[in-house]
């Protein structure tokens, strides 16, 4: 099927997968380097925040809260890397769905599983973004920040999976209508 929106989605998705993969490898390297050496000045354009890692072109740009301490950096880095991994998997599953639509197999059973997987990955993102660890110099503090947007995303994915299940049932019935 020749559809400009599907073509655009494929191109954007593939581009994002390459970009996120490269960023993930770079972040793993930076996180390990900073965690081991404690040198945060070399990579001056990266700020470690409670939300993960923050890129900026300015040394003096205001960021939500720059963290300090190697343990906290390791936690932020690991959280950001895992989050990127989840995004890569979500995009890959979405690309599978787009490919099936292009080959006119929209309601195949694999697409139901793809949407369920995307829903689960969004739940993982919810957890990754919810747990925040901070270190105030003396002891560790943790807090939990609940973002309902992720939960809504999961819900939408599971609803889509059920819609596709119904579509699959209709497709099978259509196949067996002579």
């Amino acid at each position, binding site marked *: 099927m020749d559809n400009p929106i599907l073509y655009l989605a494929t191109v954007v998705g593939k581009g994002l997968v390459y970009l996120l993969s490269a960023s993930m490898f770079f972040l793993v390297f930076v996180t390990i380097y900073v965690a081991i050496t404690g040198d945060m000045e070399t990579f001056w354009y990266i700020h470690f925040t409670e939300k993960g890692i923050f890129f900026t072109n300015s040394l003096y740009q205001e960021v939500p809260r720059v963290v300090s301490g190697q343990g906290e950096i390791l936690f932020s880095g690991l959280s950001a890397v895992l989050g990127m991994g989840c995004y890569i998997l979500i995009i890959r599953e979405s690309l599978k769905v787009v490919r099936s639509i292009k080959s006119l197999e929209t309601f195949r059973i694999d697409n139901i599983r793809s949407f369920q997987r995307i829903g689960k990955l969004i739940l993982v993102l919810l957890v990754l973004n919810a747990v925040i660890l901070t270190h105030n110099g003396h002891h560790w503090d943790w807090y939990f920040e609940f973002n309902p947007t992720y939960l809504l995303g999961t819900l939408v994915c599971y609803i889509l999976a059920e819609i596709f299940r119904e579509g699959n049932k209709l497709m099978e*019935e259509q196949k*067996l209508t002579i």
Partner: protein
Amino acid sequence: MPIVVNLDVMMAKRKIRSKDLARELGITEANLSILKTGKAKAIRFSTLEAICQALDCQPGDILEFQPE
């Protein structure tokens, strides 16, 4: 399913092969086989009409209701 397809019986009576009937109906042999084996979930009126015309019979000769 309590609806039984007696297509094979009618085909034997009319001495017509699956290949020839499929060609006459304009469907594939695989689809005709689905119909004959009772795996079909539904039958289009147009297909039923074509079968009746090809085998010179009534829908009741092909479809039969057997209570479970």
